[in-house]
């Protein structure tokens, strides 16, 4: 199965990010192909490298990064949603006159077309949200 994941909520506030991560991990471990994880709405907040969760709790951002490294996952943050919520890479910082970036490694910022493309290319779209 070739699948795409959509994540609509940020880490910690809702379980959606955790569920999406656990599902994606389980699917990859079963040998399925994950075409793309698309972060939309507050989901874009999964893509910041500035979090420091409590030591005795899971680190959701790092979980995504490690999964991406292991399986060469495509982690895409929606640009319009990211602009509203302050997720910035080098290019966005330059375009919008921001003096810092906060995007995590392995995440990339791109357009909504990436979600539509994923839905066209994949057998299944699985949405996690509030």
């Amino acid at each position, binding site marked *: 199965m070739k699948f795409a994941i*959509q994540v*609509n909520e940020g880490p910690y506030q809702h379980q959606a990010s955790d569920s999406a991560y656990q599902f994606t991990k389980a699917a990859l471990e079963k040998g399925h192909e994950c075409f793309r994880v698309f972060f*939309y*709405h507050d989901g874009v907040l999964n893509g910041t490298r500035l979090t420091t969760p409590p030591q005795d709790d899971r680190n959701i951002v790092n979980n995504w990064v490690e999964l991406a490294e292991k399986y060469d996952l495509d982690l895409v943050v929606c640009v*319009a*949603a990211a602009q*509203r919520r302050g997720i910035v890479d080098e290019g966005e910082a330059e375009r919008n006159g921001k003096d810092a970036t906060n995007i995590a490694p392995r995440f990339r910022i791109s*357009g*909504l*077309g990436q*979600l*539509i*493309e994923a*839905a*066209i290319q994949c057998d299944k*779209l699985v*949405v996690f*949200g509030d």
Partner: protein
Amino acid sequence: MSDKKQFMFLNRRAPYGTIYAWESLEVVLIAAAFEQAVSLAFIDDGVYQLVTGQDTTGIGMKNFSPTYKTLGDYEVRHMYVDKDSLEARGLSVDDLVVVPWEDWETEETVDNIVEVVDSAKLAELLEESDVVFSF
């Protein structure tokens, strides 16, 4: 076999209280460029998205509701409204926006693609879709 997919966008949230309605609309506008068969379903509080006369001046938020009227120009062919949701809220189709549609090639026109459907029909339409987007 066509490689067009049947896309269904599920709208179940009221506007303004959360951003889902607006950001869902942004996806629909982008989907137009990919030449898929795009339908929208308005269920539960999602039916409130289509209510006419929205005026956000008092809350300082952008009024994105005029965009719904133009969806016919964005390759959206069907906007289904859940009958039960509408009735529970004391609304009728007269309270909702009118969305005209025209096929530029065939010159086929539809006065209003907003259509009230019952649960059985809606369940059918959801099942017939290839992809359901939830926000």
